[in-house]
């Protein structure tokens, strides 16, 4: 992501007044207007370890842990605020008291809180714990955010992990926790794992049936690319079935090994959450899940290698013994390797101005290959910048015309109708939305309403019309 993203142990990202907020260890706070570019915010009154946050009613409850003696003697305090905007007259952190603790002897270290509102019954829960002992579960009062009964015995639900958080998905409770070592820069083995249960109290088993109370946990995301040690999962529910998650990496190799915030797509496969990847710039065929046809300029395509006469096998010029042999014929080789199509060559007959967009069977042709490039200083959305989508090797850019239909403009000029938001959906396909629609508060997405035609329509998460695959051409 862009801007100031250095943080460790970020809380779940919460939106307040059109801005995104997260709080980390040591009182750090990051704020973003769009979820892509971040800047430093104001510390809360309690500066502890690995906070977590939830928005309930008119309150923002922040749960913050602190050592109250030699580890594992710790306590988790709740503070709350009516707003996260320090400029608001309502901005004031109120103390809510201790909601969980460990006495330094018991087999638990009461740090790393994760707060979870059960969507099935409205009950509020807190999971907490670190590598010393159990991950535990206690119930909170959803009205106050405080412990319902401090004398209730916490439920042990996992062990040998930390930074727990819980989410609910299609009849299952998922306990996400971080395994591996933290705080060692690029030597940190942090990785996020998951188990699931039918009840909020467990047992949480991984995909191999191993109980998280015995160290189980299916990998959600580990190190990869230029980032090492993801930990501290936080769900971001963007609506319409689009889910992302926040985490920090122990070391971002492109930022000198600093610990940084990231937001990535959350996908679901066979009932298990897996991390998607932020969109990688490159050249792709853009294929509709609904139709299997690919987005293209409405220009006459030229077959790769040039047109061939259609001559039946055995006809004049066919090789003895049938098709495929030397000497010509419909199925024979043209000789040598046919190079990729040269867009400069085939585009000479394309209209100079705007060109309609259509879809067709993908045939490796120049008008079907799209280069997707992030646009600097154009803003973004949670976890990603806006992109421009151009025909590879040209300046012709995908845009929305005045009638709300798709068009290719001759050149990119930076308008919001030429900028695209790409959100990965739970099944791994992508939703493609113009910035101009987002700016207008409309949920319009690229939609395949025919095998050969796409337009913009209200996004329907249940439909395949607005699901797209970016395939290597």
């Amino acid at each position, binding site marked *: 992501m862009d801007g100031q993203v250095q943080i460790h142990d970020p809380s779940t990202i919460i939106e307040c007044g059109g801005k995104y907020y997260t709080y980390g260890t040591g009182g750090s706070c990051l704020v973003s207007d769009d979820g892509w570019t971040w800047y430093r915010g104001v510390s809360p009154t309690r500066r502890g370890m690995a906070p977590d946050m939830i928005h309930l009613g008119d309150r923002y409850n922040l749960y913050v842990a602190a050592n109250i003696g030699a580890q594992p003697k710790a306590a988790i305090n709740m503070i709350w605020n009516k707003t996260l905007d320090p400029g608001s007259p309502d901005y004031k952190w109120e103390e809510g008291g201790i909601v969980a603790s460990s006495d330094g002897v018991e087999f638990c270290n009461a740090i790393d809180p994760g707060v979870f509102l059960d969507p099935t019954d409205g009950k509020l829960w807190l999971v907490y714990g670190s590598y010393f002992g159990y991950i535990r579960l206690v119930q909170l009062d959803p009205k106050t955010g405080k412990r319902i009964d401090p004398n209730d015995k916490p439920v042990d639900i996992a062990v040998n992990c930390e930074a727990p958080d819980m989410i609910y998905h299609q009849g299952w409770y998922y306990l996400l926790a971080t395994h591996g070592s933290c705080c060692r820069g690029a030597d940190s083995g942090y990785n996020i794992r998951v188990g699931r249960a039918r009840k909020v109290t467990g047992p949480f088993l991984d995909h191999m049936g191993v109980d998280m109370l015995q160290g189980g946990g299916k990998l959600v995301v580990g190190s990869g690319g230029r980032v090492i040690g993801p930990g501290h999962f936080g769900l971001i529910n963007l609506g319409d079935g689009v889910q992302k998650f926040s985490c920090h990496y122990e070391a971002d190799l492109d930022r000198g090994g600093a610990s940084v915030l990231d937001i990535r797509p959350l996908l679901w496969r066979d009932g298990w959450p897996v991390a998607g990847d932020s969109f990688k710039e490159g050249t792709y065929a853009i294929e509709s899940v609904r139709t299997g046809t690919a987005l293209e300029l409405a*220009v*006459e395509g030229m077959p790769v290698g040039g047109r061939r006469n259609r001559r039946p096998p055995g006809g004049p010029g066919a090789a003895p013994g049938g098709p495929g042999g030397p000497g010509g014929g419909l199925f024979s080789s043209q000789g040598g390797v046919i190079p990729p199509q040269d867009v400069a060559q085939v585009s000479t007959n394309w209209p100079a101005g705007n060109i309609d967009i259509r879809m*067709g069977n993908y045939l490796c042709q120049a008008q079907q290959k799209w280069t997707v490039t992030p646009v600097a200083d154009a803003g973004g959305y949670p976890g990603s910048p806006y992109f421009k989508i151009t025909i590879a090797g040209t300046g012709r850019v995908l845009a929305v015309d005045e*009638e*709300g*239909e798709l068009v290719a403009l001759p050149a990119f000029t930076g308008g919001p109708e030429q900028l695209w938001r790409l959100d990965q959906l739970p099944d791994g396909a992508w939703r493609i939305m113009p910035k101009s629609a987002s700016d207008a508060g409309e949920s319009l997405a690229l939609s395949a*309403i*025919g*095998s*050969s*035609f796409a*337009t913009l*329509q209200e996004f329907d998460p249940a439909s395949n*019309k607005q699901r797209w695959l970016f395939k290597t051409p």
Partner: protein
Amino acid sequence: MITLRNVSIPALVALAGSTIVFVAAGSGNFPLGTVPSRARPASVERAPSADGFVQRWLILEPIPANGLTDSVVQAAVKKEYFPNQLTVIPGDGDKVTVDGAELTWHAIDTNEYNVNLYYFAHGLGKPTSNVLFWAVTVIDCPREMPGVRLAIGSNAASVWWVNVKEVISIYSDRQTVIDDGVSKRLTLKKGANVVRCAVVNGGGATDFCARFLDAQDKPLKEFTVRLDAAKN
């Protein structure tokens, strides 16, 4: 590999009402199936099918045409074969002369989602390959309908007009797929709206289908087909 395009056409042997039955030539009396039905319209107006397909058309006997690429098809449909070919509302049995050949317009009803041009031409003893078919219908709308789309499929290439404006063009050798080509949003006016297409076939089967979709992509059914509506 054998495709329908490589198989010789079986002999047409029997007519049963509006349903044509054929058997394969040279392979014994092996029934291959029932040809899609078509008939002359028996009523003044006709509602679209349950899925919104337009099932009444005026179709001109085929005109020779070669090529299915974008530019070739566009050139073919832009060529003037007969006067007012983009505006005329023909009557059943009207005749035009194209390159010295007299061709007849036929009013056709189909009970299928599509119109089978192959059997239309074959039944008239006309060529089915390397031909261009003109087809026209008239949609009678009870009110103005903005934001709708024409949605068509065709074998093979086709170009479509609604009230004289070209709204869809699809090219190359292709099969009829429901809602293959879809127009941009358009407005159907109250009363008569003329839908016209030119379907160009290379070889083998040839047909087309057409319906309108509303803003939610649901089939539009609030209209009737009246071939005489534009003349009222």
